[in-house]
Every structure is written in C-alpha cells, then in structure tokens.
C-alpha cells in the first residue's frame, strides 16, 4: 500500500548551512537552572545531564530552538556542538515550533494494520496541518508521525502532547479528542 502522505520532513538531514528555527526566548528561567544543577549533581560526568536538560529546555522554550541548545550548553558547561548532536539525534526533541496540542499518530505495524495511515490522513485534514509543517494558523495543532506508542493491541493510537494516548481512534473519537483539547482536558505542550 502506498503511503498516503508526503514523507515527514521534520527529521531530514540538516543541509550544511541550514539553520534550525530559533525562539524569542533566549535564556532559562532561574528555576530551570536550579533544576539542571540538581540533575548534574547526580552524575559523575556532566555530559550525562544533556538529555534531561534538553527536556527542560523543550518545556521552557516550547521547542528545542538554537537558543535553547546554546542555553543547555552554557548551563551544563559543555560544547554547543555536543548539545546540537544529541538534540538532532533524538526525534522526540522538537526542533521546530509545535502547536499547543501536538498530535502524534503511530504508524507502526500493528496500528498500520488497523488503519493508521488513514487516521493520520484524517488528523491532517481535521487540523489543517501536515507532519513536520509546524503549528496550524491558530497555533492549536501540529501533527507528527511517530513510532510505536505501546498501545499495539488497541490501535490505531494518537498521543496528545507528553503523556496521554488514546486507543481505537476513529474519526468520531478523533473529533472528541480535539474537542477535549480545546476544552482544556489535556495538559498543554509547554508551560
């Protein structure tokens, strides 16, 4: 079966000279810095704090912007390049702005067998955005095609932001989820 959607461009190799998006925000909040210090204290090697610090950056900056990577490098005292490498290696760090509700659709095998591709198409239709193409005009939605969400027995699955996924999602269920988002039933993406 042909993939019904253009490929996700979010994780294409970075062409030389290509810059990732930057954010308005340039620095960590004092609380975040304290949090990072505490994390660093737990490890013998400060490089180990890179991953958790990037999560904090994603939360504070909304996405892992260039400024966020710089801030992480500075907070931990490690080369910027190292942070850049790590942030681009892991796909779950968003390197471009996402909507208030980041809808992640699993298209792995189990879900695929139960119509994940069609669901992804629906999600794009209803939100008006395609994977890797940034938030919708109203800033509410962004969409991403993701790997297994560990709901293989009850696919297709959609995860909203960080921690909640919904099972057996069909069009009706999708609309419900989107309504719930608008009502504020889901935790927003970033603070």
């Amino acid at each position, binding site marked *: 079966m042909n993939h019904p959607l253009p490929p996700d461009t979010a994780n*294409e*190799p*970075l062409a*030389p000279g290509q810059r990732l998006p930057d954010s308005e925000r340039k620095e960590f909040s004092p609380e975040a810095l304290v949090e990072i210090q505490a994390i660093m204290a737990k490890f013998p090697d400060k490089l180990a704090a890179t991953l958790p610090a990037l999560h904090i950056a994603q939360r504070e900056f909304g996405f892992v912007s260039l400024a966020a*990577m710089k801030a992480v490098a500075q907070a931990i005292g490690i080369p910027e*390049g190292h942070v850049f*490498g790590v942030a681009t*290696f892991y796909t779950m760090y968003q390197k471009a702005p996402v909507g208030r509700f980041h809808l992640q659709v699993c298209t792995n095998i189990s879900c695929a067998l139960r119509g994940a591709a069609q669901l992804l198409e629906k999600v794009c239709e209803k939100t008006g955005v395609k994977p890797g193409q940034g938030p919708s005009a109203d800033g509410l939605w962004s969409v991403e095609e993701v790997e297994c969400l560990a709901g293989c027995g009850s696919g297709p699955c959609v995860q909203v932001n960080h921690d909640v996924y919904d099972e057996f999602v069909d069009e009706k269920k999708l609309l419900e989820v989107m309504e719930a988002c608008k009502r504020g039933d889901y935790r927003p993406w970033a603070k």
Partner: protein
Amino acid sequence: MTDSLIRLRVNGRDVASPEGTMLLEACRQNGIEIPTLCSDPRLKPASNCRLCEVEVEGRERPACACATPVEEGLVVETHTPALEDFRRAMLERLAGRIPAEDPARLAGKPFRKLLDAYGVTPSGVRRPEAKHPEHPYLDVDLSWCVACGRCVRICDEVQGQNIWTFTGRAGDLALAPELSPGLRESACVSCGACADTCPTGAIEDVTRLAEGLPERWVRTTCPYCGTGCELDMGVKGGRLTEARPVVASAVSRGHLCVKGRYGWGFNDAPDRITKPMIRRNGLWEAASWEEALEAAARAFRGALDAGGPGAVGVLASSRSTNEENYLTQKFARLALGTHNVDCCARVCHAPSAAGLGQAFGTGAATNSYADIERAGLLLVVGANPTENHPIVGARIRQRARAGVPLIVIDPRRTELAALATVHLAPRPGTNLPLLQAMANLILGEGLADTAFLATRTLNLETYAASLREWTPERAGALCGVEPEAIRRAARLYATTGPAMIFHGLGVTEHRQGTDGVAALAHLALLTGNVGLAGGGVNPLRGQNNVQGSAQMGCEPSRLTGYQKLAQSRETHAQVWGADLPEAPGLNALEMIDAAGEGRLKALLVIGYDPLLSHPGARETAENLNGLDALVVVDLFLTETAKAFGTVFLPAASPFEKEGTFMNGERRVQRVRRVVAPKGGSRTDSEILAGLAERLGAGQHFRHRDAAAVWDEARQVWPAIAGISHARLDREGGLQWPCPAEDHPGTPVLHVGTFPGGRVAFRPLAWEPSPEASDAEFPFLLNTGRSLFHFNAATMTGRTRNRDLRADDELEIHPEDAAELGLAAGDPVRVQSRHGSFTLRARPTDRVRRGEPFATFHAVAAYVNLATGRGRDRVTGTPEYKVTAVSLHAVTKRKA
C-alpha cells in the same frame, strides 16, 4: 626492558610488544598492516569503522585491533578470508556513498588506498546540498564523508575546540560546525586538524584541491612562534603548495595552528621584493647585488670613519636561523668592530632571560612542553597561549579539561582564564605585588618546601623579611584582586605538585619585567618546583627563533651562549682568530636613541621593523631620521624601510634556507630549504658574507654551509657541542645543554643542582608604573596579538588569514563602550600622553572596565603611536602592556 614485553602470536608468528600497546600498533611494528579507517595515532580509539577487526582465538566475535590491548598468549589472525570479505563488504557499502565523479578529491587519501587494495570503486553521486559554505582554507563537501568521526574527535581531543558534531542519525547523518551555519561563523580556529585527519578529503585544504598532490615533501620547522612545531611542506612546480603537521614531531605531535598550517602564502606574495634596491634622490631604484652590497659597505665604512665603531649598529632577526644570527653578531663584532648588536628579544623576553638567569643561572625555560602532561598544576601568567602559542595552549586546555588545576593570572578573561580553577585579574602593572603576596603566604602558612630551601637556596631570611609587608590585603587592594582569591591561588600552587609555570609578555613587557620573572622564579624555588619534571618556570617565547637570536649572541653585552662578554671574550677571540672590542654595546632601543642624537650613523636591520614594533612610534621615527644610512635585509618593504631605508637587500625566506631554529624549550631543530630563494633574493649568510668581504673581514665568513657555521658556534658554546646537523637529521630536535655527541639533551634544567651550586633569593622592591591613569587619561591600555596574525603581520597579512580577521580591534568592556556611545565596529580614537591611533571597537567582557586591549598587527592602525617610553629597569624592555589613555568615539562626518 625485555621483561615488560607481552608475547603473542599473530598469523602464526611470535611477536612481542610493550604492555598497553594496541594490537593494531603491535602488528604494525611487526610488519603486519591491518586496514583502518577511523583510527589516527593522535586520537583515542573509537571503534567506528570496524575495518580493523581481527580474529582472536577463544573469542566469539572478532575484535577491533585498534582498541584491543595486547595480552600475554593471545593468538590472532588478521587476514582470514572471512575478515577480508567482511572488509570488502564494508568498503563497498561506504563506496556506495562516495561520488564516482571527481576522483581527484580522493587522490592520495587513505580511503583511496583502501578502495584500491580491495578493488572497490566509488559508485555514489555528489549531493550538491552536502557542500558547506566557503572558508578561506577549508573546503567541506560531505558527499565524500564516510562518517568515521575523525574530524569530530580531533577537534575535541587535540584542538579542544569542539566545532564539528554529527547531526541526525543513520542515513540522515550529517556534520555541522557547532550551531553555526558555516565554519566561518563558528568558533573554528582554522587549525586544519580536521582536514588533515579526514581519510576521504570530505574536509580538505582549499589549496590541495586547487593545486593537487604535492610532488615532494620537505620537513622543516615553523617560521612563526617560539613553540617550534614541525611542518611537512608540500612543493609543486617549485612553489609551496601546502603545509601538513608531523605526527612524529616531539614538539607538535601532529598538530599545527592556523599560522603554521596555512600561513606560508607570504612566500610568493606579489609584493615580495626579490631584487636589491638603492634609494637615490628619495626614490628606490633597482640595483645589482654588486652595487647594492657596495653601497651598503660604503655607508658602513663612512660611518666608521666618521664616528668609529660606536657609530654603527646591527639589529638581528629573530626570524632568521641560529646560524645566521651567529654570523650576524660575528659580523657586528668583527666586520664592524662593535658590540652594538641586539635582537628583538629586547622588546619581548629579555627580562625572562635576565630574570631566570639571575634566579637560576640559566636564562631559558627550565622544562619542556612534554611536561604539560606531567604537571599536577599549571600556572599561566600574563600569557594567552591559546592565541599566541596555540599548540601549547591547546595542550594546556586539554589538561585543564581533564581536571588538572589551572591558575591564570591575567587582566583579561582569556580562553584559559575562563577554564581556570582560579583566575586572578590584577590591574595592569601590578604583577609584582600579587606574586610577592603569594610568596609571603606560602612562607607564612608553612607551605614552602623546607628541604629544598635548606639544600639549594641562600638568603631566605632577608628575602622572607622583605616579603612581610605584602599581605594579601595590601596586594589585593593594589591589584584589584580579592585577598581571598590570592590565598586560594597561593595555597593551590604550593600544595599541588609538580607545578609548572608558563609566562608571557604580560610579565616581561613592564617596568618591572625582570623583577616579575624573578618573582615567579622565587615562587618555584619556595615550593621546590625547580629541577623536576612537570615543574619549573617557562617563558613562552614569541618569535620562532628569539631564543636562538639571543643565545647566538645578538646581545650588546653577551656573546654566543648568552655568555657574559668578559667571560668568554677570550674563547671567541681564539676560535675566531681575531680580537673582539672590549666595551659592551648599545641595545636595540639605545641604538635608535643614539641615532636620534646623531651618535649612530649607519644601521643594518635584518628582518625587524622597529618603526612599527617599537613603542612611541613618533619618537622612533624622529630618531631613525637621524641616520645617514639604514640598510634593510627583509622579504618586504617594511615600514622602517619605506620611511628611512637607504639600501634594501632582499632576503631568502625561512623556507628557502638551511639551518636551525631554537624553540622556547631550548630545542634546536632543523630548518630546511624547501624551495630555492625566490627571484634574486639571498640568504642572510650570503648577504653578510658579501658585506664582510667588502669591509675587509671576508676571511671570517667563508663557511662551506650552514652546518659549518653551526659547528663553529659549537666550539664557542659548550652547551651545544653535542648537537650537530647530522645528529638533528637523524634523531630530530635536541634540547641544550647537550655537551657531547652521546648526550641525550636536557629536557629538565637544574636537576639536583644549579649551575652555580645554590641560588640566592633576591628581595624585590615594587615601584609603581608612572603610566598610572588619571582624570585626563582614565583608561589603562594593554596590547597583544590575535590568533590569526603574527606581530607586524608582515607574513600573515599576506595570507588569507586576513579574511579570517582583517583588522586590529580595540577590546573594550561593554559598559565602557556604552558610556562612550560605542557600538561594535565603531571607530574609536585612543589618545595617550605620547600619541594616538584609531581602531574599531569590539565590546567584550573578556576585558575589565577601564582596561581596553588592542591588537597591534596592522600598519593602518599603528598602535605604537600611543605607547610610551616606560622600560624594564634591568633590560630596557618596553612597557607595552601599560599605557594610560583616553578614548574618544570618532563621529562619522559626511564627506
């Protein structure tokens, strides 16, 4: 040492290797070559490419030879059919990503050799989007990248800059210069290490791509700084086409900085002068060598007739070889009959020679660069090695990153200061109080090495008493440093051994430069940090051969070997077969003063630009104007030559002659003729011989070659008697003292005893610099160099280094800049009591408030128009580092 050898069996043969050797190396030593891609002797093993996998009996999986240490009784097979198939398959996979087009890019590269050995050909296509933005020296096209990671690792493990990083993963893998769009915008220092290690040419020298593989290589020593790195120079069509680092070099260990690696372009610069010239009626006219030498000789004869030997002088070049410097001082003493000979050590490290000479008995670095890795603590004073001695700087940085405590004393927050365990930022001109307070604390808190003091030093009591007034509080108030920080630094230095001191011009270029060096020497003595590996006091010598110039005797009161005139006049006279004048001569600055007073009439200036580099340029100009004749030997028409030269003799460059240089750790290394002298230029030796001939002293200058000159120097200076050119060619550089051919050289001075037995402490009295700031001149100006240029930029200014950093800049604290209404790049006029110059402002918190810093390379800026007359009390070295100035924003008027 045979008992520490590990025995193993490789391909059915018994081999033995020292413990800790990797299998790869062990095999190589025994003539078995294992293919590798990601390994480089400069780097820790990474096991990325797995080409080096070998079968080890009893192990289920093959092991990477590059990362597996030898073990007793290992049985190894390196080239089984299975391994070879695996290698071929791996190479085929990689070759699928390498463009089949433009095979020239791979020429001579390790990857090409591997492909050829396994009969694999590249079959990929060029990806236009994989080409990186342009850079003057580095061409990056990741179509050729095989993701071996060598560039990333060398930039981290060797240069310590951490520029390259892999982005993405698997098939999306790419390489980026930190967070920047291109190398140029990144913090890359253009050391070229990544291009040198890259096995495929994905990162390659621009010149290699333009010129192709060199026809031949010649090994020589870098003509820039006193580190003395070795270079392999590539030659094609009789021209220099590239420079590569030498992995086997004891000094540089396969690394170079932007100057050595890419700074050779001056050799063929269009404005290099290769024909002699004589100035007639104010204009330079081409002349034959015969005419020019005769004109020069006539000028000296005239001056000698009119004013005697005091009326002539010679400024020697720290860029020239030891042999040429030896001939230069011999020329002054025999052909001109004067001791008026000096070199540019006067304006930099004469205080180090004097200070260390007084303190220890030998005026040179006590230890070796190799001790950087042995030191338990590093103390860097008034030096910015990551910019000025980048190879030493990179190694200090690696140690600091590995957790070795680092103390930096510098008014500026240099790169090393930012990494330091303790950074003390004294006001310019207050080094001595700070060091005295540290010494006082060490004694007061009982941290001194009493055993060492008791057996190897004298005069401790008087010295200790003289220190008592220097409490951290008093010194701290004078220096603008927290007393607590002084305590921390002193305790750390005294209690973490062995502790190694490096110092630079931030110590010497002061009114109390010599005393500052002595104070450092005292710290080392107090803590027993002299005469042991990883300790000592080590001046970072500025020019490639400034150590050599002074050591060869280009000094008004010293002869070859830095031996006192009175002491070795006899020896010299004997070897030379001629008498030397008795009275000592004038130093470089005094000679120029004497020219102004009409006492000095004719001056020979070799590879030296006093007008640009001496302080108080206006006064220097007035003085030089008093000369009847100024004979310039140089590659280019220097500022001095332009303004006052009367005869110009075009010299051969350091790449065009044979000889030796002496680096900052007393190591004598070979300089080799890479290409023939350009056009009609001649070596200093030939020029000096020609002049001597015409002055009736020709018989003293008829050496067969550079080796013969060196052999003569060995006769007058016993410390180098064991160093011959032949031995240098065979064994590589040697460190003096090396009194006999079977002596290994001396990496560490003063082990067990000093040349004069015990050494005496000398109480040092502080005297504030008169260049204090006041209401009219509220700022204290400091001066120095940037990474991309060298001194008067005579050489670097003629390379593409100027594309990397074109202009001199005035570093100024952002708050000062804001008060003056200056934004980055705005012109600012710097006015001192002596003169003024204008530079562009660069606001940065590397400098403190009230203490701007100017680089001094460019002719256009003429920073020395503003520097003053302050000189070190002992050696007369100018106080470049302290000038009271006022700053004025230059308002841009419409034309």
